Structure formats: structure tokens, C-alpha cells
């Protein structure tokens, strides 16, 4: 963990705390997993009180299959990663405005001018897209449509098989 904490300190020293002109009332520091904590009043403990994720469910939502022994193997490693982030809780942020992003510059914009991509055939050729291994019989192309699996196979685990839009 010594390596981890020195790296954490390195990152903290490079981190620019931006004071934003308008404080958005709904901005909170973002935690990738659910925590029981509020926005600012962290304890000064180094040991993080962030909850580690439910690994089987996490793997399910990410569509990564894990054998039980792999779950056992990965759980403490992921726990370590979270604790590593948890060290940031030691920082006193009371006088700092929340930043939306760790950005340097904003505004990389493009004009609304159409450009046709020429080689669309290459884009939709089977091997470009479906290189997950063997393209199976129900993937590939049909006319100019892309073929995909049966929808019912897809909606598993934390997702109801429906496009939200």
C-alpha cells in the first residue's frame, strides 16, 4: 500500500482545484459505487469506509463471466482499488468549490457541416464488427442491415432487455 499512497499523493499534488464561477447546487463528488456518505463531511481516517461492490452483480452488468474462484480472487484486488481512492477522503475540501471535471480546457467544438464517410462497406463488413471470435450464424449482414442476436438473450441481470429510448 506504500506504493499506492505515494502515487495518490503525487496525483493530489498535480490535481488543480478549479473554482467555478457558478456553483451548481446538484454537483457532488462522484463515487462510482454507492456510498453511505454525504458530500463533504468525511472522517480523517485513512482507511476508506467506501463499500466494495457486489462483484457478481458488477460482472453481470459488465457482461463479464466470472467463475467463483475468480470472484474470490478479484474481490480483494478490487477492494484495494477502492481503498486507494478512499484515501482521497483524507483531503479537507471544505473551502474548495466542486469541479465538474478534471479538465484543463473546455470547448472542443465542431461546425455543423456534413461529411460523408466514404468506405461504409468496410465499416459494416462482418469481421470488422463481430470480431469477438467466430462470427456465428446469426450475426453478420443481411442486405445492408446488420444482424444481431435474439433480443431475449440480451436482457439479463440488472437490465430489462429494453432500450431506454
Amino acid at each position, binding site marked *: 500500500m506504500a506504493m499506492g499512497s505515494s502515487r495518490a499523493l503525487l496525483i493530489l499534488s498535480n490535481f488543480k482545484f478549479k473554482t467555478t464561477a457558478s456553483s451548481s447546487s446538484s454537483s457532488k463528488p462522484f463515487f*462510482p459505487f454507492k456510498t453511505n456518505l454525504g458530500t463533504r463531511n468525511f472522517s480523517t481516517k485513512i482507511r476508506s469506509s467506501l463499500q466494495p461492490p457486489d462483484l457478481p452483480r458488477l460482472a453481470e452488468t459488465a457482461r463479464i463471466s466470472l467463475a467463483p474462484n475468480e470472484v474470490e480472487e478479484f474481490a480483494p484486488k478490487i477492494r484495494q482499488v477502492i481503498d486507494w481512492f478512499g484515501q482521497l477522503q483524507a483531503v479537507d475540501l471544505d473551502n474548495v468549490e466542486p469541479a*465538474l471535471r478534471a479538465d484543463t480546457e473546455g470547448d472542443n467544438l465542431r461546425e455543423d457541416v456534413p461529411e460523408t464517410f466514404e468506405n*461504409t462497406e468496410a465499416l459494416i463488413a462482418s469481421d470488422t464488427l463481430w470480431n469477438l471470435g467466430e462470427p456465428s450464424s*446469426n450475426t453478420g449482414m443481411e442486405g*445492408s442491415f446488420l444482424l444481431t442476436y435474439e433480443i431475449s438473450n440480451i436482457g439479463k441481470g440488472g437490465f430489462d432487455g429494453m432500450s431506454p429510448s
Partner: protein
Amino acid sequence: MTVGRLLSLKVSVFLSSVPVSVHKQTGRILHVRNGVLYCTMKSSQSQTATQEKQQPPKVKVPQHALKKTVDKITRDYEAIIGIETHVQLSTLTKAFCSCPYNYGSQPNTSICPICMGLPGALPVLNSKVIEFAVKLGLALNCKLSLNSKFDRKQYFYPDLPKGYQISQFDIPIATGGYVDLDLPLEFGGGHRKFGITRVHMEEDAGKLLHSGNGAQVDLNRAGVPLLEIVSEPDMRTGIEAAEYAAELQRVVRYLGISNGNMQEGSLRCDVNVSIRPIGQSEFGTKVEIKNLNSFSSINRAIDFEISRQALLLSEGQGDQIVQETRLWEEGAQKTITMRKKEGLSDYRYFPEPDLPEVILTQEYVDSILKSLPELPEMKRRRYENMGLSMQDVLFLANDMNVAEYFDETLSSGADLKLAANWIMGDIAAYMKNEKLSINEIKLTPKELAELIASIKGGTISGKIGKEILFELLAKGGTVKGLIEEKDLVQIVDPVEIGKIIDKVISENPKQLEQYRGGKTKLQGFFAGQVMKLSKGKANPGLLNKILLEKLNAKN
């Protein structure tokens, strides 16, 4: 009370077309309440008495009786309705790449590595998307976030090439607005104000067409920019919800940011409905309804869902109302369950690392505010203040092009009420018949003003005016030109009218005798003959005055 009546109107519409669904779901209710249905006219005390005595007969229930029962039940509940609307922006290119978007193109012809989510491709935001988002936020009276960001909404679906949708989660570009509207008069009228929770930018997914053993994917639409508008749960009836959606359509069309077409999919609405007994502060279970393709579907689907939930609650079967997504079936006119959700989806939102912060300057926002056109609400209030009736106001302000036409006619000097009447009456009828928009008719606002002035000034009669209107609409031309060409100037010289009348009288001695004998109705016959002889040019008022004098002269 008006709302209750409105509800019952809508309920009777769906009931008269689908008695079956009520049977299936609540067959028991009909069984038990047949006594009630049998004697709808009697007071409630006698109803219970008759209920005990009568055997429920197996006859088809009269529709009006069914309607009254459902109406009675729904009156005890209050519906809470919220709407999520997705507006497809009419930018020339997609949100994060330069692919053009044209509705109806051949599948997979407008794609590139970025919108296909191929490895290594990076999104670059289209500046027009920000402009349109700010326009809409301002038009909906929202507070704009001068700093906002994009987030990834992660889920797996074949029409989502990247495996995530670039959206805005916790810091949307606009929050806390409202929309003002007026309900149509045929539904009771009235002003309403509905809150807008947020407006945010996001990208559309591709199109999925279900086929035999899987699905076909067309990624032309993937990456098209959308604005999602979330309303406060302020609507209470199907008609309020439908009008809210119609007003959003009006606003996006006025702003020119979208063609707001529900049939094409450039305006999509998902509705959330829950009901609670009147007086209860807790909300009921929320049900989402999808697959609404028109404003009237929104109206009917909500009314159906309210009735469905009310019937279940009144039967003590409230636990049968689950949080789920239901589909509206246009053919069967009912909502059906899709699949019960296994808990809420976990989208694992996190800030989009490939896109910088969206930063707006106050100057930018102010310049857009200045450039906004007169919005529907402002136009309605202006027309109302000019003295037009609510019916006229709602018609004229509905379509931006019609309003512009009307405004131009007025600025050419036309009388207010007359201009409104012509546009709403004969011109609208012509447009409907010929399936033309107001921009396609050949009659210009200036000539319409000229026509109105010519009639008002007495140059031509109203009847002649209507006749040349048709030609002006179809072929254009000027009013003055047509009047001259066809010699349409009204005859207002009493001497000349007198001569024509004398001729007609002398040519019809029999009718004259009958008139003098007491058949005064024949005045109409004489008037018609004079009109015919004068080719419609005789001034009707003068004609009748002089005719009457001459007819009664030798008495």
C-alpha cells in the same frame, strides 16, 4: 367538475370501442354491479336494494351505463402524470461526428467509425447542439447551467454500438422551467402551467427492426442529437398531457430546432401515470407507458391507464398495480404489460472522459435570448390582447406559418376580425381540401388584405369576394386585376339598380300579381332574378330596399 366530465367523455370513447378489455380484467365487477347498471337512474339507496333482488343477467352491458360506473370510480382518485419527451434535433450532422442524417435513407449509409463506436474513435461535439439546447432551455423558461458535462449511460443493446449512450446525468444544461398553455375550448378551455424539471443533451440509438430469428440493425440514426425534456408530474388528465406534448411540438417548431413529428419519431413521449385517492399525500405506484405515436394516443392511453388503475384500486386489488413499463396498443386501444422490471436498471453513470466540459458564457446566452422568435405563449397573449376570441387565438397561433401570414395580412392594413375569419374559414378549408400548407397557396397576405378592403369598402360584394378568393388561392394574381378583368365592380347606383329591377318586374307579371296578392315570399325570387341579370354585381342591401319599394308601389 369539468375535469370529471372531461374524463368521462374520454372514458366513453374508449369504452365504446373496447368493451372486451373491461370484461377480461374486471369481469367480476360487471357481475356484481349489474344491478347498478340496470338501474342507473335511481338513487343510491334503491340501488343496493335492487342489487340483492336481481340475478345478474348475462346480457351485453349498455355502454352509457358502463361509462357511468367507471366515471364514478375514477372520480375518487387523482391522477399524477409526468412526461419524458425526446426531441430529435434538425442539425445537419450528428451530435458527435460529421455524418449527415436524413430520415428514410438506405440502412447503414450514413455511418462512420465514431457513431459506430469502433475502437479508437473519439466524439467531437457539434456546436449547433449546444445552440439548440440553449434555445430550448430559454424558451422553456429554464435556468441554464453555464457549466455542464456529459456522462456515459451504460447498458447493452444491439442498437447501441458503443455499449453506452453519451448523455447528461447529474448536471444537465437546463433545469427548473415551465410551459404555459391554453386547453382547447372543446375540452373545457382554461390556462395551465406545467413545470419542467430538466432539459439535457444526449445521442440517439440506432434502429432495430425485429425479424424472424433475431433483429436487423440500422445505425443511420445512431448518434443523432436529442434533447430530453423531463416534466414535473403536474398533469392531471389525458387531455392536459396531450396539450403539453402539443405545446412542446409548437415550441420546437417555432424555434426551428426540430420538426417535432411524432409519426416520424422526431418527437417521442413516454408517459408516467400513477393515481392516488383524493386527499392522500403519498403517490401511488408509477406506471410508464411507451409506444405513443400521436397526441390523441397520449390522451387515450392515459385515460385508459387511469381507469385501469382506478378499477383495480377500487376493487382492493391495488397490489396488482406494479411499477412497470406498458405498451399502448393502438389497435386494441389499451395498455399491455411488457415485462416486469427486475428492479431498476443500473446504468453505472460516470463522466464522459472523451468530452470536455460544456461552458456557456453569459454573452452567448444573452445573444441567443435576443435572437429568439416570438414564442407561442407570447403570440397567444398578444392576439388575446388585440381582442380576438380564444378560439381564434388558438387556431392562429398553432402553426407558426399561419400566424406569420395573419400578422402580414394585418400589417397590410386588413381589419382584424375579418382577416381572422377569412384565414380560419375559407382559406383553411381550401388548404385542407388541396392538402396544402399556408406557404403553398398562391394568395399573398397583401392581396388578402386588398380583398378584405375591397369588400369592406363596397367595391365588390361579399359574394363576389368569395368567388374570386378561390381563383386567387389557386392561381394568384391581384384583386384589382381580377375585378377589372371580370368587371366585378359592385353596382351601387340606385338608378341603375332601379332599371334592372324594372326590367325583371316587367318580365315576370305573373309573379308580380302573386306577390301583390299576398305571396310576399316571392321577393326572394325577384331578388334572385335581379342578381342574375346584374351578374351578381348589384349591391344586395340597395337591391332589396329598392325592390321592396317598387313591389309595394302600386298598392
